[in-house]
């Protein structure tokens, strides 16, 4: 199926910003299942300089800066994506999780070496004995990895409550684990930390979630959101995405923009500015399906 996505970030300050430098991770990358059909990034006002580069994880970064002051900054990413549905196979049809962990220890293939990059602590995802203990009931020795993950993420979904008021962008995973509340970013960080505590490799995915209106109601434009979830290295299967907010494996409602070890590697928009006073941020995302599935 194909999606048309519009992601607008509007930044307004109480005073003019005099100088600003920014980096944006807003260009969806190609994956095994996802192709970028078209993409544009519109920045208003016109920056003094814009360039793109590829970061250490293979994501596209747009770097732009302003010499002239501005009152408001609007960054709009418009992308058309073609997404394949992953091949359906029973969760039991996967390598045992402990065999995957051992293979990562031996890291004999290039794929395993690359996965090792997502095996260790990163600034926002830290392994912990308590996290390993939380995962343990789902990770019996020899259990197929996808089956274990599916049970883990379902359990996680039941134990943790989505609560935008509970956390901020800097809340540590240990607090999220203790309070059992947070938003998608917190849940992704915590799930990644739990999975890494098992000796497995997990990365952070920044992207979009298509949401469907309640039956009989029209689709609300702009009601979607930027989203985040986790992806786990599963041996020969490659990387399998799991969404702790939904408590499921990722099938066809998720559009990947970028991945890294955690949010800090792929924040949609980073910036350093001078001036601006107190500021306000508005983000709107619209994910529209442009062709029905199966065509």
């Amino acid at each position, binding site marked *: 199926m194909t999606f048309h996505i519009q992601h607008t970030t509007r930044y307004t300050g109480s005073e003019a910003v005099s100088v600003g430098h*920014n980096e944006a991770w807003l260009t969806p990358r190609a994956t095994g299942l996802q192709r970028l059909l078209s993409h544009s990034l519109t920045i208003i006002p016109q920056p003094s300089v814009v360039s793109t580069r590829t970061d250490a994880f293979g994501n596209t970064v747009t770097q732009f800066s302003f010499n002239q002051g501005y009152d408001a900054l609007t960054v709009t990413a418009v992308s058309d994506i073609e997404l394949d549905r992953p091949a359906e196979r029973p969760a039991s049809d996967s390598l045992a999780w402990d065999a995957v962990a051992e293979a990562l220890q031996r890291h004999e293939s290039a794929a395993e070496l690359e996965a090792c990059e997502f095996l260790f602590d990163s600034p926002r995802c830290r392994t912990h004995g308590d996290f390993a203990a939380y995962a343990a009931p789902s990770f019996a020795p020899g259990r197929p990895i996808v089956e274990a993950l599916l049970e883990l993420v379902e359990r996680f979904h039941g134990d943790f409550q*989505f609560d935008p008021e509970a956390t901020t962008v800097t809340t540590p995973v240990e607090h999220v684990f203790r309070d059992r509340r947070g938003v998608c970013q917190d849940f992704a960080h915590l799930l990644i930390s739990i999975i890494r505590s098992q000796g497995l490799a997990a990365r952070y995915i920044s992207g979009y979630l298509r949401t469907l209106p309640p039956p009989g109601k029209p689709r609300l434009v702009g009601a*979607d959101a930027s*989203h985040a979830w986790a992806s786990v290295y599963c041996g020969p299967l490659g990387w399998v995405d799991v969404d702790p*907010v*939904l408590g499921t494996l990722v099938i066809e409602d998720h559009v990947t923009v970028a991945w890294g070890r955690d*949010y800090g590697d792929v924040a949609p928009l980073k910036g*350093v*500015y001078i001036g601006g006073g107190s500021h306000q*941020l508005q983000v709107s995302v619209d994910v529209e399906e442009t062709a029905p599935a199966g065509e």
Partner: protein
Amino acid sequence: MSTAEKIGPPLRFDWSVPTGVYNEALDPSGTPRDGWREFLDALRHAPPEELARRATQAEEQLRENGVTFNVFHEGSQLQRPWRLDLLPFILSAAEWRKVEKGLNQRARLLRWIVQDCYGSRQLIYDGSLPPEVLFANPGFIRAFCGLHAGPGPSIATYAAELARGPDGQWCVMADRAAAPAGMAFALENRIITSRTIPPALHHQPVLRLAPFFLQLQNTLTELGARHSPNPRIVLLSSGASHPYYFEDVYLARYLGYTLVESGDLAVREDRVYLKTLAGLAPVDVIMARGPERAIDPLELGGNSPYGVPGVLHAMRRGNVTISNRPGSGLMETPVFMAFLPELCRRCLDEELLMPSIPTWWCGDDAQRAYVLDQFEGLVIKPAFERSGGRETIVSRVSAAERGALRERILARPYAFVAQELIERSAVPVFSQGAVRPGHAAVRVFMVAEGGEFSLMPGGLVRVAPNTAPMELSISAGVGSKDLWVLADGPVRPVTLLSSENEPVKLQRTSAIFPSRVADDLFWVGQSLDRADFLSRLLRAVVERLTTDAPLDAAELPSLVRILADQGQIEPGFAIEILAGPMPAFGEELPRMVSDASESRGLAAAVRELERLASLERLWISPDAWRKIHETAATFHASVSSGWTGPYDVLDAVNQVILDLAAVSGLIQDGMIRGPAWRLLDIGRRVERTRNVAGLLRSLMSDGEPIERPVLKALLEVMDCRMTYRARYLDNIQQNAVLDLCITDETCPRSIASQLAALADHVDLLPQDAASPLRSEEKRVIMGALHAVRMLPPDQLARPQTADLRDIMIDVDLALRALTDTLSRKYLLHSGQPRQITIEPDVVATT
């Protein structure tokens, strides 16, 4: 050792080197080693008193040069002097060449590894390095990937921390590849040692250090050559609060680079610029001296004051070179030491010549087993933090702590390394009148020269009184030493001054004047004049308080009110004094004057003068800086001796007045009439005008004519008594006194002479040539000058009229407006950078 008995007086050799420790000076038979014979012979005949006297001289020179740690650190009372032992550490040329060969290979190897780690990562893919070394290593920073591919050396300067073990073999205790500290200290030690060591000890030809710094200049210039044929190089410092700030100042001055802090640099259109008094000047090479992981707050986050937002991308785009390249610090994490012998074969196809201290990485099963088996004899360090931070000498901790450490290692084995302990070699130290053994840590420095590295023929030696493990920091040990490398041929004289014997193009200005420096110097000027004015005012008060009958001094209430108006004393005193509790005031005054937390007080002005002058002493004449430092030291010593009454205050302010007059003289005589002097002088004159205007407003505030005793006191504060007497004898008249204070442009303290000078200064600041009209600052200052010049003579006789008071108020307002305009236009170009962060959130869940 039996040498002590063989040598008689004069100098005592208390020289017993513990068994098993390598003796740098003597071989096991007691015969001097290569290079030491001549020195030891001379030393044996050196009178101990002369050595002691010269050692004191050296310490004095060090203190004077301000080579002390934390000397610039605000609020830090404890200053740790850089102790220097006059006896050098001597090495023969042959041995030095061996060290250079080994370290050249090592530096090339580290460069190879860092380029690979931040590039194609072959070493990971072919199994030469386990993935943990990068992926579990917080020192591996993704934003630096790709930065090491460009032309030119990625590591331009490298330092190795060396120790010599009992077998006589040098080994590397730590690698420093990001921004190695210590080379300026080595240079400073060399200069002072050469000046103060007894000439009899200094007969041998010693290799000079200057060629090393010359090479450093060449290497950095080559790095900049791809950006500009005449590259501009700046030295980026962490600033005055950093403990090694001295070194940044010293290096910048020695190498001739502009010393900058992050606020001085701006990135525009992916180019780096230096903010100067005359606008933005492009920068080609940044010699980065701060922590690499703070170099760019945009890409690396954090709120360190060191970094420059956007600088990494400017480097990626090929518009600037940061040296050493960000990422080089990865090589400082000791985990690499465990792999160097294999990596040397793999990368260079050579055997490693200069070994590291034996190092085991606990992430490897066999190595971990060895470490846990030999636990008590080892030192355990975090594998991914640069050496010199946290470490545990296992034999020194309790059994419980050992157990806990084992647990931590087993939980995260890859995060630890273990190293052997070393007994450092012994070298002669002159201490307490005798020659004794000291155990040496040696830091040596390399600079890239094409594809190779050359070694500074010298270094920074620190000595400890025993063989216990020493910290790796350059401030470790109880003292430092110069390192002499003896030449085996004639020594070529080299200096960093013009190497060719031909005339240069004459210039009248130095190329670059950063806005921050301009700002600081402006405030140096202000503090200087504020301290002077307050001292004179206080002297006038205190002199009257210390007479037999202070209450008879009719002018005292007026003077006390001025003090109150100037924020020097509680306003209550100005009222109370009319009722007569003079003793209380006399007792309170010392406290109020000495209170440095009172921001408008004399103590604060003196402290601020010293702080700002120390920051910008590159721009002030060395003598003026020394005198400022001495003035502040004298004043603070006087304060801390405990003042008990007005007499103490009187002595102190008299001294400050004389000292500041010397400072003024040195500034006027010693500073080139360039922008530095100009900004300083603008600051002084702005302050002086406002002080005089404020003083006159206080005196005129009651609308009464100013009484004669007050006019006399005013002449004292204005330092015009002699002039007045010469003109008018003892006939004190208000109009004549006010003429001297306000309108007489020949009087160096009058308001009119300050305004006229300010008008001239403003003309000579860099201007926007496109505008045909007068600049805002020029209009402001001309307006004030005009008002003063146009004062009708009879107004001076009648200050009780509101007009003169209003003019004083207008002058004050005009100078405030001038300060604001100058600040906006020339001094501060920017505010504090801030981060934006955006949290993703989902609006609804299914």
